[in-house]
């Protein structure tokens, strides 16, 4: 079970660095000269929703609004904002809906922590179940008649993964 704890730790670690496709719908002349700044703009762009589109980030969309937002992001970055400030700037003007990574608040606790809690609960359940010697349950032997029937139904049961 210590292995499981290590895995969870690893999992949390990975969560910070999950990749996503860098492809985008960005147009000619939009990208910033400064490659580092442009990289940051892409990371931010993938976290903002194109409000008039169906499930697209501003980086994925050809819509004029998406292009305006991409420009806005780059303008704020060039002005010296850090990533968090840029996102906060757009969040303040367009509301929660613009954030593809929903904010962590009382509405979204279940969303963010539900799966992890479910995993922990399941692990705890399994841990107790497998730890406890199950003396009460003994496998019942098949009667000869049942065994014969099982053989007929199953054919042979050889080694198989």
């Amino acid at each position, binding site marked *: 079970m210590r292995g499981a704890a290590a895995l969870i730790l690893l999992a949390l*670690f*990975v969560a910070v660095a999950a990749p996503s496709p860098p*492809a985008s719908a960005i147009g000619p002349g939009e990208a910033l000269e400064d490659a580092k700044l442009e990289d940051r703009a892409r990371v931010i762009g993938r976290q903002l929703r194109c409000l008039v589109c169906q*499930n697209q980030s501003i980086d994925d969309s050809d819509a004029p609004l998406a292009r305006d937002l991409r420009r806005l992001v780059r303008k704020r970055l060039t002005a010296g904002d850090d990533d968090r400030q840029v996102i906060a700037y757009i969040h303040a003007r367009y509301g929660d809906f613009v954030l593809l990574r929903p904010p962590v608040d009382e509405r979204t606790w279940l969303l963010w922590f539900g799966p992890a809690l479910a995993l922990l609960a399941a692990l705890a359940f399994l841990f107790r179940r497998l730890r406890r010697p199950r003396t009460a349950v003994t496998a019942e032997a098949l009667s000869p008649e049942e065994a014969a029937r099982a053989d007929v*139904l*199953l054919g042979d049961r050889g080694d198989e993964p």
Partner: protein
Amino acid sequence: MSAEIGHFALIVAAVLALGQSVFPMAGAARRHGALMSLGGTLATGQFVFVSIAFGALTWAFVTSDFSVANVVQNSHSAKPLLYRITGVWGNHEGSMVLWCLILALFGACVAWFGDNVAPGLRARVIAVQGMIGLAFLAFILLTSNPFDRVNPMPADGRGLNPILQDPGLAFHPPLLYLGYVGFSVTFAFAIAALLEGRVDAAWGRWVRPWALAAWSFLTLGIALGSWWAYYELGWGGFWFWDPVENASFMPWLVGTALLHSAIVAEKRDALKSWSILLAILTFSLSLLGTFLVRSGVLTSVHTFATDPERGLFILAILAVTIGGALALYAWRAPALKGGGLFRPISREGALIVNNLLMTVAALTVLFGTLYPLIVDALGLGKISVGPPYFNATFVPLMAPLILAMGIAPFLPWKRADLAGALDRLKLLVAVTVGAAAIVVFLEERHSFAAALGIGLAVWAIGASVLELAGRVRLFRAPFGESLRRAAAMPRSAWGMTLAHAAAGVVVTGITASSVWQTEIVRVMKPGDRAEVAGYTVAFAGVQEVRVGNYLARRGRFTVSESGVALATLSPEKRVYLPQRTPTTEAAIRTTWFSDLYIVLGDPHGEGGHAVRLYHNPLVPWIWIGAVLMFLGGMVSLTDRRHRVGAPRRSVRPVQARPAEA
């Protein structure tokens, strides 16, 4: 006439489905042989009549019978024959008929190939299939009749959504439905077992081939959808965590868990109750997917029915099926006896890890998909749940899953020695860590993600190769001996090895194309050149063409490498008539190891065009891997012990047993 024949056939099919739900069930309860076998006949009949209805609808589309409303709304006489046929399921009504056709096919298959299943259980399975069929046939007849006529008859149709006029998307729904609906059989097996109050190792054995078949088709269907998104949506992405994608992905995740737990149920007589729950959940998620797509609750790129009345009807089917199944489970499952004992570190334990992570991953996807709807419905505002959420929650679950997948085949049943297994894998551990270290060393930007992805891929593929080598005693026995062992290996072992290695191939593709993509966006005039990842792409110009039912601006790009011309690529911007819908057709040159991907944008300045050039390394491996997974499933399915109906029949008919709950 054909429309009336089709409508009538649907009604007959619904009546047969009613009989199919009642008679075999009653027969199984009273152990009445004739009533039980009537189920098989009715299932065959239902299939025949749904086929007639489907054939009639197809005929109406092929002959462009514009007296049928559905044809008017979704077809056009200028459409190529292929898309007149695939247009049958490129709309709500027709796609539901296809759903029913595949459902009836699976029901009939249980009747045709289920000889080895105990008659009582088989009768109940067929009855449950009949009930599902009845519900969906009633849905079509009451809310979505595809055979409605229009009067007066218009001169021509309105045409199929141009996005659907594409080979990838044309065959995406049938494959997806083979998967979705295939899980109805495992669901029916679960319900039938609960009704009988008896689940034994044989149950696991009977369920496995059906789960395997459904899973294989679902894998292929999802991959085809993703491939379509890649080449059609025009910016080289392949998975968008779109709600409709998620709707098909959730049954896949839980279905994968079922596939593995059923092995434990068969081999070790354990996890039986859990397998039944997974079978119920998998089909429930398939139904949920159908509901989400068909009801218009979610608006998405490829939703084509938005009708609240229909949504309500499907919601009712959903509530009765899922609610009823879970209630039955809560009532009967506690009486099911537990089976084989095992230690946490064992093959059973590893398969439980798979089950746990797959179901939690499905839960994550479910939460992410439904949460915005729930928050909105509760009046708490509008929120979005997009790729950043899914990447942050889903990827961390997949990493340990792949680690466990590599090591599980090295663990024996019941009680295993983890240190011993790792000792056998120590070379692979070193190679994996080495590969990850090299990636960290070479890559600056997303080094952690890249190293993790490549490490996991090396691990998955390497472990499969080692497992295979160990089985055939490669280099430890004479080569002839190894070959003999390989030939004697059960097909299901080959299938597992292939599918597990394929998972590594998919991870390689996802990682490499995400991390090492090159993108160039610029305005190009005829004669301009651009350099992408060692290729020189020269823009020759744009011409206007008219092809069939669309107009296109077609770009011409010549691709060369060190002065050697390799290919001419022609990306297009199309406008489909008669709707005047624009679409973008990327041009792709693939080497199987990478794609050069060109998108023609809008005119820009004098004679110039916006052009996007991408180099996507290893991206084809995503779909190659998915196809290998499918083949793994198919190879497994041909295993003598899996082959539906193949095992020897019992000499004397097996008596149905009284319920023991």
